[in-house]
């Protein structure tokens, strides 16, 4: 089987993590699988780079030196997993020279006193550029031929939208095949840096949040692999957040569109962008626990077999905590279609994520849910721009809410699901403030008070018989 294995930063934060990854790769190749490895920066490294960047323009040479020494320490410690002296010395030199480059970049930015999106991407790219050769060396030391490649070297070509670059998929697919197929033919495992890519002129770009998962998906699609395995520090996607409901179960098999819904609802096991790549493909994704590799995780596939016993009407209960509800009312909203558009536009301009909207068809009233952290900004901008306009009589805000969502493709076309959801809430005396259901019918979301959050999850989990799913 040909597969991409993606290892996240949490999994590879130290020598023990690297050794575990080597063990997993070795076992898989031993079984005759063809592997392409995609790896994030070592755990915590990207955060340190972000930190370094934040005060870069103000910082003095001494603090820069200290930050880079701290980064050096993390990577040198990770190299300790490599027993082979020659290889270990070699990769230490590589890492040292990359750190010198990093220092030059940082000094350069510091001198210019300005951090452009382009130099930001260059700086962030060092996390993955440092981790990749270490893993490749660790594999080599175990007798597995491996070659470290940056995303750009692997062939991922993006536009120049720095910070959140989008790959040119056709060019990328062609180049990835051109660059990786010959390596694999020679029995060499490509170890590719996730998150980073390059423009057509070779300038370093990054793929944005969750970029490493995205890289793995892009490479998997290009090489038409059989499966993509995302190695995480959790076993997979759960029916509910275990911290809210300890009885939640592992979902063994789920469809891409369902997984995307769940991923959007805060369960950041795998990034939605990586899932979207799989949506129209025949790829199979698996999420597995790096520390318990023999255990089955979650399979994400194109559709779940209709006769699957595992299939319920509702697959998972997701929650977005700490939500602020804004209510815009005024009789004049009726028949003035621009208000809703303006509201969304203004919030978007402020970079405020609108989590949910609901508007009655009388249009006299509109409710918007935003993250609590953005609540003050949102209220402020709406008050300033709408209150004087005569269209809006009143804007009120209320905190202390959460969004609960039931997700499942089985809800599609099944009458009575919403009724059951709300009956379940009524039976538990949980008041629902606002409701939304997309026409895809993949999820029903509603807003309840935070104090009812656990009770709501528990009630839904029980009433939709998610407890009885075999784990």
């Amino acid at each position: 089987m040909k597969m991409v294995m993606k290892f996240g930063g949490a999994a590879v934060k130290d020598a023990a993590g690297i050794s575990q990854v080597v063990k997993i790769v070795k076992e898989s190749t031993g079984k005759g699988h063809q592997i392409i490895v995609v790896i994030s920066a070592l755990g915590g490294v990207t955060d340190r780079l972000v930190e370094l960047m934040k005060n870069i323009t103000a910082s003095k040479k001494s603090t820069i030196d200290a930050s880079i020494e701290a980064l050096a320490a993390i990577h040198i410690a990770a190299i300790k997993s490599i027993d082979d002296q020659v290889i270990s010395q070699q990769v230490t030199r590589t890492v040292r020279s990359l750190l010198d480059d990093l220092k030059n970049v940082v000094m350069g930015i510091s001198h210019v006193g300005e951090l452009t999106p382009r130099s930001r991407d260059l700086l962030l790219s060092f996390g993955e550029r440092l981790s990749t050769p270490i893993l490749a060396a660790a594999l080599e030391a175990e007798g597995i031929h491996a070659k470290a490649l940056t995303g750009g070297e692997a062939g991922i070509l993006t536009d120049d939208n720095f910070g959140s670059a989008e790959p040119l998929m056709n060019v990328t697919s062609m180049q990835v095949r051109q660059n990786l197929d010959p390596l694999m033919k020679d029995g060499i495992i490509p170890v590719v840096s996730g998150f980073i890519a390059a423009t057509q002129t070779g300038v370093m770009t990054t793929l944005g949040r969750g970029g490493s998962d995205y890289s793995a998906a892009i490479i998997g699609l290009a090489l038409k692999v059989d499966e993509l395995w995302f190695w995480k520090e959790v076993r997979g996607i759960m029916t509910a957040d275990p911290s809210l409901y300890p009885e939640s179960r592992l979902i063994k098999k789920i469809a891409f569109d369902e997984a995307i819904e769940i991923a959007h609802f805060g369960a950041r096991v795998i990034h939605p962008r990586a899932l979207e790549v799989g949506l129209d493909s025949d790829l199979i994704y698996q999420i597995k626990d790096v520390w318990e590799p023999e255990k089955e995780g979650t399979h994400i596939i194109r559709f779940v077999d209709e006769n699957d016993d595992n299939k319920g009407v509702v697959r998972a209960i997701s929650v977005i905590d700490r939500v602020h509800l804004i209510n815009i009312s005024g009789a004049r909203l009726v028949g003035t279609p621009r208000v809703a558009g303006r509201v969304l536009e203004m919030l978007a301009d402020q970079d405020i994520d609108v989590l949910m909207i609901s508007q009655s068809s009388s249009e006299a009233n509109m409710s918007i849910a935003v993250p609590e952290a953005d609540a003050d900004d949102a209220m402020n901008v709406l008050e300033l721009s709408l209150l004087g306009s005569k269209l809006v009589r009143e804007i009120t805000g209320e905190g202390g809410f959460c969004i609960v969502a039931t997700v499942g493709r089985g809800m599609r076309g099944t009458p009575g699901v919403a009724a059951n959801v709300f009956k379940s809430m009524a039976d538990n005396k949980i008041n629902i403030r606002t409701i939304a259901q997309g026409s895809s019918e993949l999820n029903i979301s509603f807003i309840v008070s935070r104090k009812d959050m656990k009770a709501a999850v528990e009630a839904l989990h029980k009433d939709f018989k998610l407890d009885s799913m075999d784990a």
Partner: protein
Amino acid sequence: MRLIVVGFGVVGRSSVKVLVEHQEMLRSRYGLIPKIVGIVDIDGALVNQRGIPPEVALSATDRSKKMEDFKEYFVPDVRLNGLLEELDCEVMIETTPTNLETGQPGLNHLRAAMKNGVDIVTTNKGPLAIAMPALVELADHNKVSLRFSGTVGGGTPMLDLAKRCMDGLKIRSFMGILNGTTNYILSKMDSEGVSFESALEEARTKGYAEADPTYDVDALDPAAKLVIMANWVMGKSLSIKDLSIKGIRDIKIEDIKRAKMEGKAIKLIASCGDKIEVAPLAIPRNHPLNVSGTINALTFDTDLAGEITIVGKGAGGIETASAVLRDLIDIRKTYAHSSMVAMPRILRRA
């Protein structure tokens, strides 16, 4: 319009010839004043930023002349990428030989042009047969025009007929004869009853077949054209490696005779419908595709207008150069009509 011609074989030379000989018509009818700033080939280049004088360019198209004969303009060992960065030009005319294994050197030439914001007219099937989806995507990303009328049907506007004259129609399928050499061979076998080998030999002496006829008789040439047609006209995303391809090497004179008895003729047909393939096929003798000699023909099956067939010469230096001319005029029009975004690099920069 400042042009750089890359590849100076039959098509490259013919293109320069046509451009020089028809400059008056191009100027008066289309406001297109071709200025050739570079002619690049494997053994060097002729370069002049202010334009190689037309009489020099014309004289260089003479097969007996070598590039180094034009000392004033001759530059040995040029790298196209560097040249494109140095020279200001709006359009590259790419006419290097087709390579259907790697697409090179054409593929690199196209990418270099795109990187430098230079619009492209190409007659080279190789890069498109191998990487058309990627190239179209890159052209779009770099906002350059990528025109390739001359890759299919020589001077016969097969691509444009489908793309421009069939608005509102749904093309259900198309099939046709996209290779003149094999059609010549099959016609010869049919009309004179000669064997494949002797028909091929005759095609060689007449200059229709090359010394190595592999691309023709093993149907790789029509397959490349089919890839381009299917991608461009039918919105597929194919490479030549995805196609089922069968040539005419195994066609025996007995097969031809048997078909004839049944009122049919064996043709090498490229088709895009349920299946996308190139293979010899017996078609009724009164079928519009039953053309003989080196002629190409293509029939589109459309939902509203029924079958539409286009017939014409499928190859030839001057014929293909006419397709280059068409593409250049078309690019000229986009400069005149569109906003700054579609402007050539030099105007965008201003």
